[in-house]
């Protein structure tokens, strides 16, 4: 084929690519985190304050905890902030991070139909789940290896109930918190959610909070810098600056001051 023709074609293709993304000379880090922190609006409140102070832009990839850790494991993020202590400690022991630092907590709530056919309403999550199971009321599970899914499975175990997708009342959606809540709203079923996502969720239908305040529903978030010795390209200084800021008294106060519908959603508890 005509050589000039091919040359022209490839020059155009290269040009098409090179016009994109020239503008970003700014310092930035990639943070892989959970849907609850992003969708609750916390990051929109938190990150501008950090960017203003340090000039570092934080790019958030919001996915389930399992996937967020995997993104870190592959070296595609500089910092990981998730909520599944067991999985996070595994991440550290595998050498993908040097340490895990506790940042804040929020809590889980059991959501269900206002009419509450299983009579699950109360202050004890495990007793509530036993009632859901014995009445075979529809229960929607995340089923996606997220932090919330891991917590849910812990509560079922504590309640002494064996759950599996073969039981018709127990439905694994394999989706994020929001989509799972949409499913629960459509089927008028029970579901475990983090409070922050529930507060910002709009398509509630006939659902309401039935169980809250059980100390077991405590949901701890940890932050980790992806290990530069595993992935040398990790932006160590900027990533560390973010972690230092979020556990500083200024960062912690910014977390505490974030409110959804007048309610505080995240409670800072970093150890100084």
């Amino acid at each position, binding site marked *: *084929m*005509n050589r000039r*023709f091919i040359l022209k*074609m490839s020059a*155009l*293709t290269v040009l*098409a*690519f090179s*016009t*994109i*993304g020239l503008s970003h000379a700014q310092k930035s880090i*990639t943070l892989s985190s959970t*849907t609850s922190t992003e*969708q609750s609006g916390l990051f*929109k409140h938190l990150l501008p304050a950090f960017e203003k102070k340090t000039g570092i832009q934080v*790019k*958030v*990839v*919001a996915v389930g905890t399992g996937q967020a850790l995997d993104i870190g494991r*592959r*070296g*595609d993020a500089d910092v990981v902030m998730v909520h599944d202590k067991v999985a996070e400690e595994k991440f550290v022991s595998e050498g993908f991070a040097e340490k895990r630092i506790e940042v804040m907590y929020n809590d889980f709530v059991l959501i269900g139909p206002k009419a509450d056919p299983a009579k699950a309403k109360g202050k004890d999550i495990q007793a509530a789940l036993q009632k859901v199971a014995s009445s075979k009321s529809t229960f929607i599970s995340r089923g996606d290896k997220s932090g919330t899914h891991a917590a849910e499975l812990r509560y079922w175990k504590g309640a002494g109930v064996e759950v599996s997708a073969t039981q018709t009342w127990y439905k694994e959606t394999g*989706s*994020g*918190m*929001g*989509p799972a*809540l*949409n499913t629960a*709203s459509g089927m008028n079923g029970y579901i475990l959610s983090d409070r922050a996502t529930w507060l*910002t*969720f*709009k*398509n*509630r239908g006939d659902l309401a909070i039935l169980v809250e305040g059980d100390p077991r529903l405590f949901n701890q978030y940890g932050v980790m810098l992806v290990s530069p010795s595993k*992935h040398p*390209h990790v932006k160590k200084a900027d990533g560390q600056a973010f972690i230092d800021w979020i556990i500083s008294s200024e960062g912690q106060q910014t977390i505490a001051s974030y409110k959804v519908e007048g309610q505080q959603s995240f409670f800072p508890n970093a150890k100084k």
Partner: protein
Amino acid sequence: MLSAFNDAFSLLESLDANLLGIVLLSLQVSLTALLVGCLLGMPLGAFIAIQNFPGRQGLIVVLNSLMGVPTVIVGVVIYLLLSRSGPLGELNWLFTPKGMILAQSVLTTPLIAALTRQIIEDGWRIHGETMSALRLPIAAKLKWLVWDCRFSLSIALLAGFARAISEVGAVMIVGGNIDRVTRTMTTAIALETSKGDLPLALALGLVLLGVVLLANLMTSIIKSFAERRYG
């Protein structure tokens, strides 16, 4: 439903800078992917249409099947390629518009190539003998055929654009749906749906539909103008 239409209009009315950024990014990514898809797909499709070589039928079947490859699969494959632990990690294209363009180009190229192949092959049936008699070099033949079929080829263009601008599977995985960096119209719709804000999701969907409609309208106007002028 009705409130979604209202929302869509007030979204457009306020012309929120954030929304504008999302629309522009979507257009930038999908139009570039369309350009790449045309530059690679059209010559490839035209070449297959007029050239006989062993395995040609097989290649056509493969090309036609690739038109229907799930966008999520393309997303995962490109993700694995661009990941820092993958072969192209050094490029640093993951979670950037460049990576999204690459992923969408993988979607548009086979689609445009397959449609071009069919259209040019039909043109070849009409003009083939004349061109063979003229003993034109293959590049010249290709150029003539593409030019001759340009009006029919506009459907390949529109199909490629539609495939790119409407997909969510690939850009979600490769782009990461990062606010103000890689959030497109489709990933924003997915996000608002998962927040349970269905009216806003639908409103964004209407904006997307409007953009697609506008693109088709413009193509149609240019086409009818050109047909009158040069047809």
